[in-house]
């Protein structure tokens, strides 16, 4: 069991090392096989861990593995600890499973690329870092994984680094998430200051006694850690990197920026739910941020013409849902949506990738020609399944997880947030319908270049897509509508730990208060989703409604001027300061330095004039010296 836990992150790490060292010399077939093998094996290990945990009684499903004694400096003891419990096992399964499928898909998608080996090395490294993050036993190890995935995200976004847009996007992602990481790190320090340890089990156990309910300290800790989540999970206002991150290869977008890395923030909050429960204000902030982000990003997705960017904003929006869930303390609902979202968002991305593969890299939906639906039937079907799941249509998985979230939000009394979530669901259905219609539908302008006839992707790309589609369809069974569904029950020991008593205004308090009130949000959600779908079909497939308010369109198109705000408030001032600093450095500091040198030079030149070469001058100097000494002797014998 211990071995299985360690193997989960270790196998992809070994894959990275091997591929990094020798991958460049191996044929593509070998590289692809090795890379996929490590992740599939990691998945197998995750399954083993899961079964191992399942064999144990529910209350004691907790295995810690100290890989090595990392930091031991007096009172500061931080071992390199891995933690296998229901939460981490479930997340590891999702990460490794979806990761494995995407690895296989990538072997087809990236075929022929010059950086094939480099790609898989990075991808494996990412898997190792992400799994490390998931299986971390303390905040320090989690931080290593956290930074590791950030690094890999940068490396993979800017994978085609000769493209300036890609390079810029990679840097932007790294820097923006870095901002969040500052908060995260400060939060870690604060946790250590309060608890004297970073160990998760200890923190969960002692949170109630060490943190006063609603006090400033737990609120500060929670908010600081949340700042890290905001950056990593692309919530408002640190979301700006995610749409640009679409410059990277599509499988990367699927894996990192939809299914796994961006969900790390949600995972982290669930892990530290004991702390968050002691800071209701922070939970409110989380929920509000999630809701606002959800509607904002959904609106942005509405006006995007780049297919991948639509999906990027969709991801941001759905992440907002997850944060909304954890913000009302519906931990397992958040994890459920994380799982289903991983399935259908990855499915959507892989289908989009298939479209791009067929069209030679085209992502602009306005230029996807007519009749792609006929030419790429399987891809169109896959995309449709994903779209329906995203819109929340039963019996697909997305329906269940979204309804759980909306239900919990409603039940915990956050009516305004529920309304926002509801509205977002409608907009979501609308924009994804739009995306499907524009991409695969019959209308739109013909493609510019008359390339090869577009066709469905090869098997190696198709089978993972099909697998994800199957998961999307069947995944609802994991959680069902009940908080106490299979996933909820599985996570019970984890999420109940450290909860002294149910905190008012959260799901755990209102879980008991289900009843007719439950069916209202359910029906409302379903109705809104369907309405959105129909409306979208009407507008885009039938062209019924034209010319909506142009002002609204501009507002949306400029993403409510968020980016413009960033440019004005952050980027420009920083550039100006940098320019001033450069001038200051040149004029003042350099001048001081060269001024000293110049002064010395000029002094030297002046002194040099004393060396006239004339003996008589020298004699005169000697005489002057003699006179001075004489004067000294006369006045002070």
């Amino acid at each position, binding site marked *: 069991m211990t071995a299985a836990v360690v193997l989960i992150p270790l196998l992809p790490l070994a894959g990275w090392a091997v591929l990094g060292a020798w991958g460049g010399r191996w044929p593509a077939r070998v590289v692809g096989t090795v890379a996929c093998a490590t992740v599939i094996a990691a998945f197998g290990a995750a399954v083993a861990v899961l079964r191992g945990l399942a064999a144990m009684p529910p209350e004691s499903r907790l295995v810690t593995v100290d890989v090595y004694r990392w930091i031991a400096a007096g009172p500061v003891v931080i071992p390199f600890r891995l933690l296998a419990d229901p939460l981490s096992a479930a997340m590891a399964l999702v990460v490794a499973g979806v990761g494995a499928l995407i690895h296989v898909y990538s072997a087809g998608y990236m075929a022929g690329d010059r950086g094939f080996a480099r790609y898989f090395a990075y991808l494996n490294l990412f898997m190792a870092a992400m799994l490390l993050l998931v299986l971390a036993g303390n905040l320090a190890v989690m931080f290593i994984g956290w930074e590791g995935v950030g690094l890999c995200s940068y490396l993979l976004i800017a994978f085609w680094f000769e493209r300036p847009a890609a390079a810029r996007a990679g840097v932007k992602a790294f820097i923006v998430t870095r901002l969040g990481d500052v908060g995260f790190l400060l939060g870690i320090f604060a946790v250590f200051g309060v608890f004297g340890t970073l160990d998760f089990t200890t923190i969960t156990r002692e949170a109630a006694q060490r943190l006063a309910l609603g006090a400033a300290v737990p609120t500060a800790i929670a908010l600081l850690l949340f700042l890290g989540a905001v950056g990593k999970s692309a919530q408002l206002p640190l979301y700006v990197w995610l749409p640009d991150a679409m410059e990277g290869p599509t499988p990367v977008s699927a894996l990192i920026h939809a299914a796994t890395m961006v969900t790390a923030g949600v995972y982290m909050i669930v892990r530290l739910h004991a702390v968050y429960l002691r800071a209701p204000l922070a939970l409110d902030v989380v929920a509000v941020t999630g809701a606002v982000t959800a509607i904002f990003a959904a609106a942005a997705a509405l006006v995007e013409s780049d297919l991948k960017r639509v999906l990027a904003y969709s991801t941001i929006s759905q992440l907002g849902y997850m944060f909304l869930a954890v913000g009302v303390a519906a931990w397992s609902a958040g994890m459920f949506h994380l799982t289903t979202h991983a399935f259908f968002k990855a499915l959507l991305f892989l289908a989009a990738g298939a479209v791009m593969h067929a069209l030679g890299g085209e992502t602009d939906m306005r230029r996807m020609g007519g009749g792609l639906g006929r030419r790429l039937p399987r891809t169109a079907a896959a995309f449709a399944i994903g779209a329906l799941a995203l819109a929340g249509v039963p019996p697909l998985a997305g329906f269940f997880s979204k309804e759980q979230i909306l239900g919990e939000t409603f039940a915990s009394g956050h009516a305004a947030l529920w309304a926002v979530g509801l509205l977002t669901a409608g907009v979501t259905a609308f924009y994804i319908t739009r995306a499907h219609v524009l991409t695969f539908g019959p209308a739109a302008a013909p493609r510019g270049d008359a390339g090869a006839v577009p066709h469905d992707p090869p098997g190696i790309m198709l089978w993972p897509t099909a697998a994800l589609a199957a998961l999307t369809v069947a995944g609802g069974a994991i959680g069902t509508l009940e908080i106490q569904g299979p996933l909820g029950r599985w996570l019970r020991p984890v999420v109940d730990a450290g909860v002294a008593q149910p905190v008012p205004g959260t799901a755990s308090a209102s879980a008991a208060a289900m009843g007719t009130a439950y069916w209202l949000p359910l029906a409302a959600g379903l109705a809104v989703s369907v309405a959105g779908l129909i409306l979208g079909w009407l507008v885009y497939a039938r062209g019924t409604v034209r010319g909506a308010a142009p002002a609204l369109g501009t507002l949306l198109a400029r993403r409510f001027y968020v980016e413009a705000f960033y440019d004005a408030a952050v980027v420009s001032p920083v550039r100006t300061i940098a320019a001033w600093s450069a001038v200051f450095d040149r004029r003042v500091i350099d001048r001081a330095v060269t001024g000293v040198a110049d002064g010395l030079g000029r002094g030297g030149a002046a002194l040099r004039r004393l060396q006239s070469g004339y*003996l*008589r*001058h020298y004699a*005169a100097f000697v*005489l002057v010296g003699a*006179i001075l000494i*004489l004067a000294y002797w006369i006045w002070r014998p």
Partner: protein
Amino acid sequence: MDVVLFGITAICALAGGAGVILSRRPVHSVLGLLVVLLSLAVDYLLLDAQFIAAAQVIIYAGAIVVLFVFIIMLLAAHSGEHAGIGAFTGPAAVPVVVAMCVLLAAGLLALVTRPVPAPSGGGAGSGPVPPEFGTIQDVGRALFGRYLLPFEAASLILLVGMIGAVALGRRLGRETTRT
């Protein structure tokens, strides 16, 4: 009586010195130097430094002045000074030089006209000295006794001087014979 003698030597010495620095022709300067040397020799006698007086005449007046004369002869055509830009030009040169010399003289005179303190170690002061003071035996005893090392060093200096003269002279000789 001694004062008168001193007065005469003083006048001669000063006149000779002026001659050295003021004469147009180098030969006249050499003569002035000679006058100074001989006047000082008399002064040495007045100061009971017989050996030194003799050495002064023999070495300085006898050898060094002769050497000067030889060189003047050698550089007969070159002994003058030519006009043109020199070290001290401009209106400030003369006053500055004059000021320096005046200051030097004033300083030295101020220094030497102080009351001389009683000599330490039981010296004679202004009184008489033992009769063998300053005789050649007296000086010899000191040279070969207390000052033996400097004496040997001085002979080394003379050796070096000789070698230098020979080395420089050889080059000179070679030049002239070639032409």
